[in-house]
């Protein structure tokens, strides 16, 4: 029998050599967060990538312009839903900057402890999800076990596991519960041991290492020009942490290290987050030691803080004070301020413009992962399709924050 291709001229039965376009997302099982990546492929290599966001846009900035300053807290909760407490604290600090008030010392420590707990939960979620997307499901369960312990504390303190809305302008909604210190102190050792166990599952795993090391590299200069902050910037070797560079609350009294990476690849981002969990534990331990056991939580200013409930029900002053704050909102003097804190993903900024009424004129949320996600297209150009998943995972894009 004759071979079948004998009559064919050379080169006629070639496979298509034109690039193929592939759509990934916005709803993709291996990508947490709603993001669409349109890729142009040559074989499995990505030639061009277009990252499209906005699928979780809920118009927070518009909604903020309708209520009072206190009514913004539920919205910022839903921005970075992996660490809502950090957002609460960040927004409260920004408004307090505009008002020119400082919360009492006890409240500052309370905010630090709750914020660092939220940061641990954020990093545990990110690293766990990253491992899961690469097929390692057990570490995710381990990390989530640690996160559940933190959520239990949050539930005990705030009444809600995820969306606390616990921050207030000029303080917090409630003082710390009576066994707050004991509760937090008891949860730190188990979290560290969980972290150690999960590390033994991952850090010596050849497959895991190979898929992270050297993938998604970025130089420090590029990262700075792109506006990267937080763990992603530190993975490139730039030791910029808002808590160190521009200390707020009581961070200048607490000693902690800023872990940095060298290569700026996925592995470094993963390792920086792991180390930051340990540093957060250090911060919490010191803050618990220094935190006063008694004292006021809220600032002593009837124009800002709601009166205690028994006063509202029994005195005319309390009733009026309560009514004015609830119905008219806190009167923030006209002006503008930019408050910035270290959120779970980097510098979380709030640019606030007030016209002197009880309603914000403009609340601009500067989400850290907006700047980080815009680099995704560049990071995945030239790599293979499977590398998209760990690269995207290590950036820790949070849809609610990125899309406002």
């Amino acid at each position, binding site marked *: 029998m004759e071979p079948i291709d004998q*009559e*064919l*001229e050379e080169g*006629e*039965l070639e496979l*298509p050599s*034109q*690039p*193929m*376009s592939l759509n990934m997302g916005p709803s993709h099982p291996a990508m947490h967060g709603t993001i669409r990546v*349109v890729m*142009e492929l040559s074989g499995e290599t990505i030639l*061009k990538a*277009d990252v*499209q*966001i*906005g699928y979780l*846009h809920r*118009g927070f*900035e*518009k*909604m903020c*312009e*309708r209520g009072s300053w206190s009514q913004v807290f539920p919205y910022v909760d839903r921005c970075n839903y992996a660490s809502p407490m950090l957002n609460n604290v960040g927004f409260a600090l920004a408004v307090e*900057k*505009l008002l*020119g008030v400082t919360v009492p010392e006890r409240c500052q420590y309370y905010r630090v402890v709750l914020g660092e707990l939220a940061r641990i939960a954020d990093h545990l979620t990110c690293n766990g999800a990253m491992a899961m997307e690469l097929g390692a499901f057990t570490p995710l369960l381990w990390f989530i076990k640690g996160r559940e312990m933190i959520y239990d504390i949050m539930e005990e303190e705030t009444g809600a596991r995820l969306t606390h809305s616990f921050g207030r302008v000029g303080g917090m909604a409630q003082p710390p519960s009576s066994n707050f210190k004991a509760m937090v102190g008891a949860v730190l050792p188990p979290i560290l041991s969980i972290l150690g166990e999960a590390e033994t599952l991952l850090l010596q795993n050849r497959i895991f290492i190979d898929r992270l090391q050297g993938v998604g590299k970025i130089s420090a*200069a*590029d990262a*700075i*020009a*792109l*506006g*990267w*902050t937080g763990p992603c910037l530190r993975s490139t070797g*730039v030791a*910029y942490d808002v808590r160190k*560079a*521009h200390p707020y609350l009581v961070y200048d009294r607490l000693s902690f290290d800023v872990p940095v990476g060298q290569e700026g690849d996925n592995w470094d981002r993963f390792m920086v987050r792991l180390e930051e969990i340990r540093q957060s534990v250090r911060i919490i331990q010191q803050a618990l030691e220094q935190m006063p056991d008694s004292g006021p939580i809220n600032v002593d200013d009837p124009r800002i803080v709601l009166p205690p409930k028994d006063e509202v029900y029994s005195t005319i002053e309390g009733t009026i004070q309560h009514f004015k704050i609830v119905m008219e909102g806190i009167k923030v003097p006209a*002006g*503008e*301020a*930019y408050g*910035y804190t270290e959120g779970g993903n980097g*510098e979380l*900024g709030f*640019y606030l*413009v007030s016209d002197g009424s009880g309603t914000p*004129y*403009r609340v*601009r949320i*500067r989400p850290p992962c*907006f*700047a980080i*996600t*815009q680099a995704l297209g560049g990071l995945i150009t030239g790599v293979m399709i499977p590398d998209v998943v760990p690269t995207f995972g290590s950036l820790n894009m949070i849809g609610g924050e990125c*899309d*406002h």
Partner: protein
Amino acid sequence: MSQKLLDILKAQFGSDILETKSEHGDDTAVVLPGSWLKIARFLRDDSRCDMQMMVDLCGVDYPSREPRFEVVMHLHSINLRHRLRLKTRVGDAEGDGAELDSVVSVWSGANWFERETFDMMGVVFVGHPDLRRILMYPEFVGHPLRKDYPADKAQPLVPFREGYEKLPPFDRFEGMSFGRQVFRSGKAD
């Protein structure tokens, strides 16, 4: 430290700086829109300023003012640890003619922030490499963060997009689906 920064700007650009102020610990310089790009490049390159990072860029709408929009940029120097808020004012009362030079050539990170400001406020950034909507969809009419855009307004559902109407930068002839591929069998007749 930062008051020095405002002094440097005033000495360098003089009448291009409309006003400067420092309140709540933030330093602000309001500049003419025409010198926006020039000042941005100076702030990045001058060793006394050294603003390597553009932290944030957004718009604020003041319908009663003329020019109507304020474009606000927050800059940060990691080495010198100082910050600056740079503002400029563009657009007439109707919101038209709001044009500003893009600073993507200075900080590549400005790309998405300018797209967002264009999307939300309708400020057009001249020289932007890829100015299209980012948070809203292409068929959306208007700019939602303008004060005159009703917060409860609903827009019609978008009809199903045909496959070939790919969003830029991929036009209909770029890329290829398997269905369109024609294999030649080699037997012409």
